[in-house]
Structure formats: structure tokens, C-alpha cells
């Protein structure tokens, strides 16, 4: 079971490689990837250096080109594919059918991983991408239960990668337009969700308010942990009660079910968080390296202490195994 770690910049890449990642994933400095944030991602020179550093230590470098090009901007995606392939990237993580076809027009067998943004949640969807584009691996959306993942792994035509830790997207990725509904920019089109440029914090009657494009996302009393206003994690009013209607500000942590994921035949565990700091990448990579080795090499479960130790790093300081456990659904 491989450990796939995020690298939003060169420093994080070094930390991930040194911490024991089997692969790191990166993005280019444009909206072709789903973490198109200011100050993040790689220039050509950094990619070359990063690949050298990783390859010398037997770590692979994946590049996410996993947003959906609109026709008027199509060439930005094809030139990004050219750029990444020419620089010697090991694998492209892709969601768009057109982009996959473009990659296949350049190479019959360049490794393609189906991005979580393609939202493939079942066998026939995997068959579609496997038969049409020969995908090597698919990253599963965070919507399946553990039993469903295990079932899918038995018959899948390709390898499966699942999310292990990090920010928890509760919607089927690639099919969520909430962000563009509220700001005009979405993960699919611009590689952003609840973009920072639309965020505003205001103090009002002793309460801290977070807004997204002027819509009130949450209101915090003194002492409450005020998280980033990701639109699906705020408190809203429904039938006159104020609640976390969609989800609490919580993160995913599947360390507790690693043995089950391993015996299901899952090929890789993905750590979310290209937007996080090198220090975060360092801590999380090392913790997960240890956990995977414990499960895979020694056939043991991960201790509760180690699992809860990660919670401090998590958004909202609380974690869940999310949809893997049916009661979450």
C-alpha cells in the first residue's frame, strides 16, 4: 500500500520525500489543478529539481491536471500536459475526458490516474475510463463506505487509491457547483472551492462572522474555534434551528481502518493538503509512513494514541472516518 503525499511547494516536496512518501503529487501554477491558490504550486525549474530529488530517493512525482477546461481556455490544459510530460513527471492525475484523450494522442501508455474530481464511484464508471483511456489507477471520491470500497476493489479493472487524511470533501467531487453558485469560481473550472478572495471576517456585537461573497457562513462566540468559511461547513438556519446543515468543520482520518483498507487490496492512501505548510506535510507524512509500515509489514493495528494525535493537525481539531462508516452517512 503506497503512501501518496501532497506537495504545494518545493519545501513540502522535500519533507514528503524525506518523511517516507512513496509518491508526491504536485500542480502547476495555473487553474489546471484543484488547488489553484495564491503562492502555491510549481514552476518548471522547481519541478525539475523536485523530480531529481524524489527520483534519487525512489519516490515518484505525480502531477494533477484535474480541473475541467472550458473550450475557450482549452490550450492552457494541453500545454500544461505537454509541460508536465516533457519535464519527466511520472504520472498525470486527470479528470476531464478531453484531457485524457489528449494525453492518449501523445502517448498510448503514459500512466494516467483518474482524479477524484472525475467522481468514479462504481465498477461501470471505472470500466468506462479503463476501456476508453487505459487508466492505471482511480482515486475514489470520499462517498463510499468501507464495505463498498472493499467490494469495488475485488472487481475493479485498475488500482484504487483512497483518501486517508486531510480536509473532508463531503460531496461527490467534480459534481459540486456550490462554490461557483456563490462566488462564480468552482473546483471544476478554476481549481478552487470557497476561494480566499471572497472571504471576509467581521466583528459584530462581540461575535466573529465569516462571510463568503457577502453570504454569512458562520458566526462564532468568543472562545469558539473559528475555521475557514468552507461553504459546506458553516452553520445555517433550517426550520428555525441553526445547525451545521451539511457538515461540521471536521477532517478525515482513516488510520483506524488501515488494516481493512489494506486487506481490501487498496493500492494507495492519499493524504490531502497541498495548501498546508511544509511542517504539516512533514508531521503527517511521518505519522502515516509509520502507520502503514505497522499495518503492512507487521500486521498490527495503529494505536488509538497515534490516531488521536493527528487530530491536532486537522481542520477543526476533530476527525471522522467519514463515509467509510455508514452511520456518518
Amino acid at each position: 500500500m503506497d503512501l501518496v503525499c501532497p506537495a504545494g511547494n518545493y519545501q513540502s516536496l522535500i519533507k514528503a520525500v524525506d518523511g517516507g512518501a512513496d509518491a508526491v503529487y504536485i500542480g502547476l501554477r495555473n487553474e489546471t489543478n484543484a488547488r489553484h491558490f495564491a503562492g502555491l504550486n510549481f514552476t518548471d525549474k522547481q519541478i525539475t529539481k523536485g523530480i531529481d530529488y524524489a527520483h534519487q530517493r525512489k519516490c515518484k512525482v505525480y502531477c494533477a491536471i484535474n480541473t475541467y477546461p472550458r473550450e475557450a481556455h482549452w490550450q492552457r490544459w494541453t500545454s500544461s500536459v505537454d509541460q508536465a510530460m516533457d519535464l519527466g513527471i511520472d504520472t498525470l492525475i486527470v479528470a476531464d475526458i478531453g484531457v485524457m484523450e489528449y494525453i492518449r494522442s501523445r502517448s498510448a501508455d503514459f500512466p494516467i490516474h483518474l482524479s477524484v474530481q472525475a467522481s468514479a464511484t462504481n465498477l461501470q464508471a471505472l470500466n468506462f475510463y479503463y476501456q476508453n483511456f487505459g487508466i492505471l489507477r482511480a482515486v475514489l471520491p470520499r462517498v463510499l463506505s468501507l464495505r463498498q470500497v472493499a467490494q469495488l476493489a475485488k472487481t475493479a479493472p485498475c488500482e484504487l487509491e483512497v483518501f486517508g487524511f486531510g480536509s473532508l470533501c463531503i460531496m461527490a467531487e467534480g459534481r459540486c457547483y456550490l462554490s461557483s453558485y456563490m462566488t462564480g469560481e468552482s473546483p471544476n473550472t478554476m481549481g478552487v472551492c470557497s476561494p480566499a478572495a471572497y472571504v471576509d471576517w467581521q466583528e459584530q456585537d462581540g461575535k466573529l462572522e465569516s462571510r463568503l461573497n457577502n453570504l454569512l457562513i458562520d458566526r462564532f462566540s468568543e472562545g469558539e474555534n473559528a475555521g475557514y468559511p468552507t461553504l459546506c461547513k458553516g452553520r445555517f438556519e433550517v426550520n428555525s434551528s441553526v445547525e451545521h446543515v451539511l457538515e461540521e468543520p471536521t477532517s478525515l482520518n482513516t488510520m483506524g481502518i488501515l488494516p481493512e483498507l489494506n486487506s481490501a487490496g487498496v493500492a494507495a492512501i492519499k493524504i490531502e493538503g497541498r495548501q498546508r505548510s511544509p511542517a504539516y506535510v512533514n508531521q503527517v507524512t511521518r505519522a502515516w509512513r509509520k502507520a502503514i509500515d505497522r499495518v503492512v509489514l507487521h500486521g498490527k493495528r495503529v494505536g488509538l494514541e497515534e490516531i488521536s494525535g493527528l487530530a491536532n493537525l486537522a481542520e477543526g481539531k476533530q476527525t471522522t472516518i467519514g463515509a467509510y462508516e455508514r452511520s456518518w452517512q
Partner: protein
Amino acid sequence: MINSKPKISLAAVPYFWSKESYLSFYHQVASAPVDIVYIGETVCSKRRSMKLADWLAIAELLSANGKQVVLSTLTLLEAESELGYLSKLASQKNYLIEANDVAAIQIASENKNSFVAGSAINIYNNRSLMRLKELGMSRWVVPVELGCDDLSPMIQLAARESVEIEYQVFGRMPLAYSARCFTARHHQLTKDQCQLRCLEDEQGILVNTQEGEGFVQINGIQTQSSKVSNLIHQSLSLLNHGIDIFRIVPVSAVDTIEVIQQISDGFLTLAEPLFEPNKLLGDYQYCNGYWFQIEGMNQVG
């Protein structure tokens, strides 16, 4: 003045209604001025007030009244039983299907069946459009977040390849799908023990910000826009941008029939239809921002 009247389509009811409600609604639809009717469950496989045979009976009724019937399919497929039901729909030859997941495209194309690509299929560019056309796509329901400028460079290819373009002109927009059922969550139930509580709300549940502004509408595992998209006053612009089919997504049964009538009546004189919101019973807020390439929730004009 407009040169030709577009076709009008009615999307599948996104909400969970009782069998009696569906039957009564589709009996009215059968005599309403709509050209294409999509039927079936697209949101949650636990909603089973209608069996396949019941839907097929509705299909026959609508066909007999001159409607083109399209069988819609589930959007988020997880369980094997869901794939089994999808297989039945996507491999039959009597009716066109609306694919809302690539699984449906896979099964339809394996069976050499043509299909409509629903709005949850991500077609954002010509290369994707062409590939799916080769696999059997005969009609493209545009993803809700694409607007007029996004469509402009794609109209020519779609026309050349005889792929019809369908765009939502009325109704709440489908914005997200989750493993979690938000209706059950609101009632403090898990999805597995949901008691089918979504049956209580004809049009889902409105969620406001703490300041009382519309945020979203929860409908089982689906999240919709709280505002109703309304492009009736942009009909001319839609036609100029090559939209062949105007799609109405059902709201309440009674208001849906009224909206079909208003749009159709408007086109009788080949003028741009007028929309008269005061003739609807529901108290809706409207938006049209996506068409104008801005926030979907905004209203231009």
C-alpha cells in the same frame, strides 16, 4: 421576434413524491404543452414509491400523448443493486435514457444505445463532447455552471454532429451530491434509518443563512440552489446561443404545470415569453447568474 420555437423539456422530478402524486402529476403533463419528458428517480435509490413497471406505464401514457419519453437514471451510484437497476434501464431499446453518471454511458454504449448526457456529466469542451458523441450521445444537457460564453465555441461542433443542446431555464439547480443524506441529518436520523422523511417535503427543505438569506435547498443526498433559475426572459439570448431545448426542472406540481403553460403560450406568437411570477402559488426567489458567467445565485436584469 424569434425565428423558431424551441422544444420544451421537463426534467425528472428531483424530489420524492408518493405514487399518487406522481400519477396525478404525469396525467396533467400528458396534456401539457411540453415536447420531451424525463422520468424516473435521479437522486436516491431508497425512494421506491414507483417500481420500474409504474414508470414504464407512465412512459406509455406520455408516448401515447406525443411526448418523447426519456428514462432518467441515478446520479450517484454506489451499491451493486443500483448498478443492476441502471443496467435494466440503459440496456433496453424502447426509450432513450438520460445518463447522469458515466456508468450509464458505459452500459448504453456497450449495448449500442444512444443516450442523453445529463447535467451531472462533465462536458466542458469540444474534445469531451466529440468523444461522447462517438460513444452514442445524441443530446447534451449543459452542466449548470456553464454560461453563454462557455457555450459559444461549442455550438458549431454540436450542430455539425447533430447533438442537441439542452439548457435549464427554470427550477432549482442541482448543485451537489453526497454520500450523506441531509434530510435525514436534519431529522437527526442516519441514512440507513431515514424513514423516507423526504416524502414530507414536496420541494425539499430550504436552508437560509443566519441572516435569513437563501443558501441552499436540501433534497436527500442532493443539494440544490435555494433560488429558482429563471431564464424565461433570456429566451432570445438562449436561442441565439444555439440552445435547442429549454429544460424545466419541476418545483411543486401545480407551479410546474403553470410554468410549462406560460413558456409554451409565450412562444405561440414567436415572441419572447413573458413570465408572470404572481400566477405561481409558491414564493420563489430567482437567479440567472450562470448564464451571464457570474455567480449562479445572482440575478441579472
